[in-house]
């Protein structure tokens, strides 16, 4: 078995090419948008800001390291957040790159991630550490092609103001096609993805649904805005509505 540091090295070497391309794509896209905005007389400022944000995201991605950490305070007792996470099959509700997680028993679960053009990666994971209502860690099993680690900590916030949930994940994909697929799925901006995943987890617990505007009406969009949406928008999963329904129903039963 490769050591962790070896895997991190691998992660930097392989799979980073696609990421580099994507990063440049983002920077150029962002830059072009900004330039376009500056050449226009009227709604320029909004577009320039949007373009600036895209360019910023592109730069922030940095070199090919698939590692992310995020932390959110959630207004619930640690037990609630822990139960929700521990049922690993719940993870795809708020982790948009996951298609499914199926528990196979004995602490083993099968994970499927889905990326652009329905690229799929599957791996098995085992729970490596578990402290009820406090901490959970897992890693891919040795027979998986794809190496990943994850952990999540549930800590009571000071003053009993909910729970601070801190999640960490790391991916070390192999080279070749699988590495490129992994880069496409996880490499976009792992820190950003992790944060948004955790934000959705928080929303599910607190709001009982995931906020969205996807599918609401609007007037005619400009061609450039429509293109940006197609390229950059993160699309909501169709299962999110149902997840909200289940959360609301559970909440009503509880109260």
């Amino acid at each position, binding site marked *: 078995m490769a050591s962790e540091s070896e895997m991190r090295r691998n992660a930097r070497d392989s799979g980073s090419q696609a990421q580099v391309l994507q990063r440049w794509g983002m920077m150029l896209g962002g830059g072009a948008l*900004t330039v376009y905005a*500056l050449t226009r007389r*009227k*709604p*320029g*400022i*909004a577009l*320039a*800001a*949007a*373009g*600036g*944000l895209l*360019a*910023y995201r592109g730069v922030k991605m940095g070199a090919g390291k698939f590692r992310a950490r995020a932390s959110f*305070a959630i*207004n619930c007792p640690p037990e609630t957040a822990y139960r929700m996470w521990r049922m690993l099959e719940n993870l795809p509700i708020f982790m948009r790159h996951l298609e499914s997680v199926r528990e196979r028993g004995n602490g083993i679960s099968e994970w499927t991630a889905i990326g652009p053009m329905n690229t799929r990666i599957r791996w098995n994971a085992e729970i490596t550490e578990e402290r009820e209502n406090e901490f959970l860690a897992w890693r891919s099993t040795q027979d998986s092609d794809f190496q990943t680690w994850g952990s999540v900590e549930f800590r009571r916030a000071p003053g009993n*103001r*909910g729970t601070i949930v801190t999640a960490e994940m790391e991916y070390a994909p192999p080279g070749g096609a699988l590495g490129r697929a992994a880069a496409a799925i996880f490499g976009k901006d792992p820190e*950003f993805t992790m*944060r*948004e995943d955790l*934000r959705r987890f*928080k*929303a599910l617990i*607190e*709001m*009982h*649904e*995931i*906020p*969205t*505007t*996807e*599918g*609401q*009406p*609007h*007037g*005619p*969009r*400009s061609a450039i*805005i429509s293109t940006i949406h197609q390229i950059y928008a993160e699309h909501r999963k169709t299962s999110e*509505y149902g997840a*909200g*329904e289940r*959360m*609301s*129903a559970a909440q*009503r039963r509880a109260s």
Partner: protein
Amino acid sequence: MKAVCWMGTEKMSVETVPDPRILNPRDAIVRITSTCICGSDLHLYDGYIPTMEQGDILGHEFMGEVMEVGSGVDQGKLKVGDRVVVPFTIACGNCFFCQNQLWSCCDNTNPNAWIAEKMMGYSPSGLFGYTHMMGGYAGGQAQYARVPCADVGPLKIPGGLPDEKVVFLSDIFPTGYMAAENCNIQQGDTVAIWGCGPVAQFAIRSAFMLGAERVIAIDRVPERLQMARDGGAETINFEEVDSVIDELKDMTGNRGPDSCMDAVGMEASGHSLFFATDRAKQALRIKMDRAEVLRQCIRACRKGGTVSIPGVYAGFVDNIPVGAGMNKALTFKTGQTHMMRYMRPLLERVERGEIDPSFVISHRAPIDRAPEMYRIFRDKEDRCTKVVLDPWADGARAA
């Protein structure tokens, strides 16, 4: 349905767009009976707040009838057929902030929280029709609107009260009231209010409700100054005096007002964080004039007094006299309105006949005339103080 869309700076357009539908279990669909243009919409009209996109539906002051509710809405709280006023802030009701009555700081309702976080550190709640940074929710200058978290925000209105007496509970009445509350008014206080727009008009009346003995209102538009006097305020026309601050000193025996309110705000707050452009610089320069209000508030306020800022700021301002604020021991209070604190108590005041909020209305128009109304309101033409739009006038299709 018909909807007022932002198509670019100073380009509003009434477009036919698809009807909204339920997207989340706690949503409701409201058939809008009255909807207004807010002074803060003019910042969007003038193109000074970033992250608007062509085609966005505007409007955040509206009321109507519930047509449909999602499966997650408790029928005891809201059901089809209820007549409701919808607050402009969207709040989940369960996060730390909602549970501490800081409704406009809700942690969960902005799907684009990351954009707001880049600009402000943390994201406030989602708002209707007010940029993608603030959630990108389609607004209510339309025939129908989708209302998220509908079991928290919408306030049921009993029959018998006409729309125009209650529609301002959606924003400007509570906003003016909270602005006055933020003045920390003690019995007998003197409050100075910069700006005599609709929010200020409600702030003037609220300040008296909260125990102020004297309100001094500052503007230059004659009909607005008159409206302030009708509300019991003394007025200063800033174009007729050399110095507003000297005038206030004179009126208060060199003590200064106990609290000063900036009910003007600053349009140029939203220039790009990332790229200085000539256009942004120009916009900034124009707006430096307007930031003068906040500067004046700070300098005019008495020692140990309070500065209340209901005026909309979205970004950065320069040359704020922080030294004056520090050395005079001032308190600053501000924020988007925590709507759900104020809507019901203020409705009760309307029901008891203590105030009839319809006094601010100067124009009533069918929605088709919205683009023209935006311009008139911005330019303060035709003695315009407040515009209420009827989404269904002119034989628009029935519900």
